[in-house]
């Protein structure tokens, strides 16, 4: 391929004719250089783009107390996030599966030290929701039931992705269904990841009404009391 052969004159060699040399072009250095360049570009590119998580917070304007939206106690779940730190190194504790150890103290309805429970982000195991995800999905099962149907329709190709997105959004904010209101309160020790995990759970469980607040004195007292009463928390696995 890389050689250029000059044609013979009918195979008959004339005397005194110039010697025909096959011209070879060696492409090896060219390949070497190209490989180097490819390596450079491969290392410099970002193939995976970052994902984003949408967040809407209320504005900081002062709202008159009586105008504040009050959540029905029967619908409310308050999650207080906490992260455990290694006392020696000061780094967040790591679970066996490599994720950071976050603890969620949650109560339903009004703050009451008797109803506080402890959970963690466990994700799924054996196709079942675990940990806090299970609790939230139980509270939002009416929405989730319809969501599963919608998702199946989309997977079967009955509706397009856009329709699915629109319908699941409508479904998540359908006021005729029984839906919880989740108040996420990242505690003083909680890392940024704990918050993202909590907001993620909202997405997974199709909870449209959630708010992020800072814990108040009542919450701190509640947690302190809870921690005092339950010195050995159940190990998360």
């Amino acid at each position, binding site marked *: *391929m*890389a050689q250029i052969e000059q044609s013979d004159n009918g195979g008959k060699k004339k005397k005194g004719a110039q010697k025909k040399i096959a011209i*070879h*072009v*060696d*492409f*090896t250095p*060219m*390949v070497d250089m*190209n*490989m180097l*360049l*490819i390596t450079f*570009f*491969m290392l*410099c*590119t*970002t193939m*995976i*783009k*970052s*994902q*984003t*998580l*949408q*967040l*809407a*917070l*209320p*504005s*900081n*304007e002062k709202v008159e107390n009586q105008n504040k939206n009050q959540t029905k106690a029967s619908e409310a779940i308050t999650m207080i*996030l906490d992260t455990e730190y*290694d006392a020696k*190194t*000061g*780094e*967040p504790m790591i679970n066996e599966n490599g994720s*950071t150890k976050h603890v969620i103290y949650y109560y339903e309805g009004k703050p009451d030290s008797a109803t506080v429970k402890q959970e963690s982000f466990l*994700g*799924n195991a054996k*196709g*079942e*929701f675990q940990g806090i995800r299970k609790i939230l999905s139980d509270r939002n099962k009416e929405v989730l039931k319809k969501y599963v149907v919608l998702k199946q329709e989309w997977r079967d190709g009955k509706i397009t992705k856009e329709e699915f997105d629109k319908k699941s959004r409508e479904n998540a904010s359908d006021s005729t269904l029984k839906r919880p209101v989740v108040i996420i309160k*990242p505690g*003083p*020790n*909680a*890392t*940024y*990841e*704990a*918050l*993202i*995990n909590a*907001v*993620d759970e909202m*997405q*997974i469980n199709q909870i449209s009404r959630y708010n992020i607040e*800072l814990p108040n004195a009542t919450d701190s007292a509640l947690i302190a009391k809870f921690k005092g009463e339950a010195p050995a928390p159940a190990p998360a696995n």
Partner: protein
Amino acid sequence: MGKVKIKRKSTLIDMTAMSDVTVLLLTFFMLTSTFLAKEPTVVNTPSSVSEEKVPMYNLVTILVSGKDKPGKEGNPATEGKVFISFCGDQDSTYSSEKVRELVLKEAVGMYNKEHPSNQITLTDQEIKTFTSLNMFGVPFAGLKQYLALDQEKRDKFQGNMADPAVGIPINDNKDYDKGLNDFQIWMKAVYFVSMNLRDEQVGNLGVEKGSEEEKQMQNLYNALKRSGQAIAVKADKNTPYSTVQKVFDNLQTMKLNKFTLMTALKSEEEQSAN
């Protein structure tokens, strides 16, 4: 018996085909690559199940630095430094450079109004330098000095998170109308610029409101106010929430209460079965 003749084969391997392939690959990588924008500090974003991609254009990225080393070894002074980067439209009149220039002028004007005794004036050269910057994080007071440095020194200066002169001040968060801090001035400037772009375009060209053309012109504004996609907060997963919350709080004061958080994609097994 005749001798067995061993044919001498040339060991030359024809590299032409190989070269063809590598050139093709090279072209592919050259065309698809978007270079990693240089950031003053590396942050490890937390992962989430959200599959929305971060927009490439019309984006304001707010980077919140984490500790230089994890745990107790880390210097707490390096945590929570704020950096901003502006990115304009892809290929229109409002490219990144243009948007940066507009925002800078607007922001400096606002700063001078707020601090009449401590005014700053930038030369054309300094403004030009600013438009080529990807990410910056210095208070207004140190901006002139910072822009006077050459690139290498600038990166070095900005890379030193422990320096109190690095990072855009976000403390001292007050009401919207009075006493904005540096970070809030930048955000307000972005908001004003995006609004001006929209109004100017619509006013000058007599484009009908609600038409397709108008929509294209107010990209930044729309992304900023309506969909909240123009502001992306990027922070390390091990940064305490209280640090990141300061940035959120500032944004809330600026009534930019819709924004996005940059995350990595969670592994497949985590999101399955739902």
